């Protein structure tokens, strides 16, 4: 059941506030490439969803600003910052986890998980991410809070914008923009701490000794925060962000969304105290939901791309319903299917388990399981074998053949490892590193923590053991509970061919 919004219909003449989207539509066709932005003046609402949004805003901003300052002891000269993307050192640290650049697939896995979780949550509960957790929403909310502190609520702001310039208008505007820029700077400033040791960077930043990238990214995020949350706001969601376009494929008639209950609200119309509610809907057409909307839409037009499902119109409407003494929830988190069922005078059915949600849940479980398995079974050891190419083999004085290999052994753990190297292939192969006194079937190589060690290994095979010009061979490495094998070849050319 999809609600089709017919925007070709002539607007019914309305009195009082009109949604920003309706005002734009009223302007009709313009010659420019872009639709002119109609300023939106969201009115402050009070209620449970607004309270949840405030709490989530504080929690998420706290996480963002505090995380780089959490310390996490690591052995040796490794950084003690719990969350650190160390570009210079080529490492990613997150508490006990340390990832190397070649393990970037863990980041890919994390992104796949994030995407699947977003799909699942969207299919079940609609655009919770957009309404509560997206940085664009959180920072815009914060910026509107600042705007309200300087310029007052909706009506005061509209009046101020329409008023000619005065000292009062000037200081309010300058103050607002100054605080906005300050928040922007704080956003950019916190961002760079994720990439360098925070306590060191904060001193270096002020005395001009931080790396150029720190200043560039701090400035970049200051500007984008200021522009995105101060000026572009809902345009980022409508025009820049791909997610509102993709979500159409994730939602269906059983997804929870902020919904105007048509079945209960229509026919709408003004209502005077004392008049009967018989034969009419509960919507008194007060437009409280419209003026509260930060996206500038009228939720009563049905579900639409612009709606970020923040629930502020629910709070606005509940306030009115209380006042006119009708039950709350004329606008509520509900499903299209339920509304349609009630319109048909049938009991609404809520279906959380649908093929779509099952697919997403199974995929999410699989990927998460794979990630956890990967992280817990991650080997500290990583080995690459490079066989000498020039010369490919060396014939010794007694006719024996010696091949040279370079083993690059990475120790991605926090402890030094004694790696035991063995070579399986031609019979009686002897291993040796340059400068070593002994020759044997096993080599022991000490690899310091967090280090890649390149070791030259010479493998000598007596003439009698050479069976073919190219014999398959395997390097086996063992360190503690980690073991690895790497396939290679033992080449002898036609040197010992009879």
């Amino acid at each position, binding site marked *: 059941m999809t609600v089709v919004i017919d925007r070709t219909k002539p607007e019914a003449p309305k009195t009082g506030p009109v949604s920003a989207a309706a005002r734009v539509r009223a302007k009709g066709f313009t010659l420019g490439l872009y639709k002119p932005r109609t300023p939106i003046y969201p009115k402050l609402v009070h209620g449970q969803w607004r309270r949840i949004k405030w709490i989530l805003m504080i929690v998420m901003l706290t996480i963002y600003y505090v995380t780089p300052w959490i310390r996490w002891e690591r052995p040796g000269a490794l950084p003690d910052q719990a969350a650190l993307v160390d570009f210079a050192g080529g490492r990613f640290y997150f508490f006990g986890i340390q990832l190397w650049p070649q393990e970037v697939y863990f980041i890919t896995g994390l992104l796949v998980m994030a995407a699947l979780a977003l799909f699942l949550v969207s299919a079940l509960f609609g655009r919770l991410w957009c309404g509560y957790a997206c940085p664009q929403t959180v920072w815009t909310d914060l910026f509107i809070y600042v705007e309200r502190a300087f310029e007052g609520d909706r009506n005061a702001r509209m009046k101020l914008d329409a008023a000619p310039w005065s000292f009062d208008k000037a200081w309010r505007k300058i103050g607002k923009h100054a605080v906005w820029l300050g928040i922007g700077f704080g956003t950019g400033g916190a961002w760079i701490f994720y990439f360098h040791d925070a306590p060191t960077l904060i001193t270096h930043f002020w005395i001009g000794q931080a790396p150029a990238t720190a200043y560039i990214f701090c400035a970049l995020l200051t500007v984008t925060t200021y522009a995105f949350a101060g000026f572009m706001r809902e345009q980022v969601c409508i025009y820049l962000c791909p997610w509102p376009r993709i979500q159409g494929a994730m939602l269906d008639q059983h997804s929870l969304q902020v919904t105007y209950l048509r079945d209960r609200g229509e026919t709408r119309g003004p209502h005077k105290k004392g008049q009967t509610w018989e034969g009419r809907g509960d919507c008194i057409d007060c437009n409280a939901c419209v003026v509260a909307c930060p996206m500038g839409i009228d939720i009563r037009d049905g579900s639409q791309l612009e709606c970020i499902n923040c629930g502020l119109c629910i709070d606005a409407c509940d306030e009115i319903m209380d006042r006119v003494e009708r039950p709350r929830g004329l606008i509520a988190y509900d499903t299209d299917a339920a509304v349609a069922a009630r319109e048909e005078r049938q009991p609404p059915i809520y279906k959380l388990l649908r093929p779509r949600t099952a697919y997403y849940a199974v995929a999410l479980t699989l990927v998460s399981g794979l990630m956890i398995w990967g992280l817990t079974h991650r080997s500290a050891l990583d080995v690459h074998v490079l066989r000498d190419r*020039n*010369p490919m083999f*060396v*014939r*010794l*004085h*007694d*006719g024996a053949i*010696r091949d*040279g290999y370079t083993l690059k052994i990475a120790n991605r753990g926090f402890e030094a490892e004694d790696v035991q190297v063995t070579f399986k292939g031609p019979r009686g192969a002897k291993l*040796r*590193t*340059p*400068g*070593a006194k002994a020759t044997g079937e096993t080599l022991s190589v000490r690899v310091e923590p967090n280090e890649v*060690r*390149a070791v*030259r290994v*010479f493998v*000598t095979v007596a003439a009698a053991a050479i069976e073919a010009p190219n014999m398959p061979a395997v390097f086996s490495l063992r360190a503690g509970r980690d073991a690895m094998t790497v396939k290679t070849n033992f080449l002898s050319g036609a040197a010992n061919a009879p």
Partner: protein
Amino acid sequence: MSHRETDEHSGVETTGHEWDGIRELDNPLPRWWLYIFYGSIVIAAIYWVFMPSWPGVNSYAKGVLNQSDRVDVAKQLEALQTQRGAEGAMLRSASLETIETDPKLQAYALAVGQSVFGDNCATCHGVGGTGSKGYANLRDDVWLWGGSLEDIQHTIQVGVRSDNPHTRQSQMPAFGRDQILKPAQIDDLTEYVVALSRRPARAAAVARGAPMFAEQCAVCHGPQGRGNVTLGAPDLTDADWLYGSTQADIREQIWNGRGGVMPTWEGRFSPETIKALAVYVHANAGGQ
């Protein structure tokens, strides 16, 4: 025969020259081109003041900035040395064994050695160090002048048959060319040397060659032909032959007594570089 006239079609004056009835319009240079040209003249004048420009008899005008590519290169080399300072200093003080066994020093020495080897040694010994006929293979375990780290370091320092006063020196007589032995005797001696490396040879010739070998060759190559590292005399019993292993190759060597020359590198490389090179060569040869 030049008379300028105005071309009817374009209204532009001609240059007045005519070749086989073809006349040339005297169009002015494009403005943009002209201004760039004038600008270049101005820049050239400024350039003369600041940069080296006019040649003199013994010197040249150095310019206000006193710029010199030679000085720049020297500065860059100096900066490189400073950058390498720590490892360079360690190379200078550490013993060869320490350099070869310490993982960090070894990695540094191998990197230095590889680049120096490629620039200087690969010409004769090959990029892989495997040599060729007449040029020693530096990868195997056969060493004319010794394969220890110190021996290799010394060979690089003084060279072989070079103009260094302490050079590695040896000279095999040209038994044939200088008519020390008769051709038939050389044939017998060749058979004997082939037999030394346990290959089939004519028994009668080997028997005739044996006393000759004891008389002429054993002084350097030893009575069993096992060679002598202090004299640079190769082992004749193994599978490694500097000038080829065939009978003809061996005969030619006895006839001409060839010996290659390796230059001395003492003056050209710093002691650290020679150390790094010795470690590189030693490590690549299996590091005995």
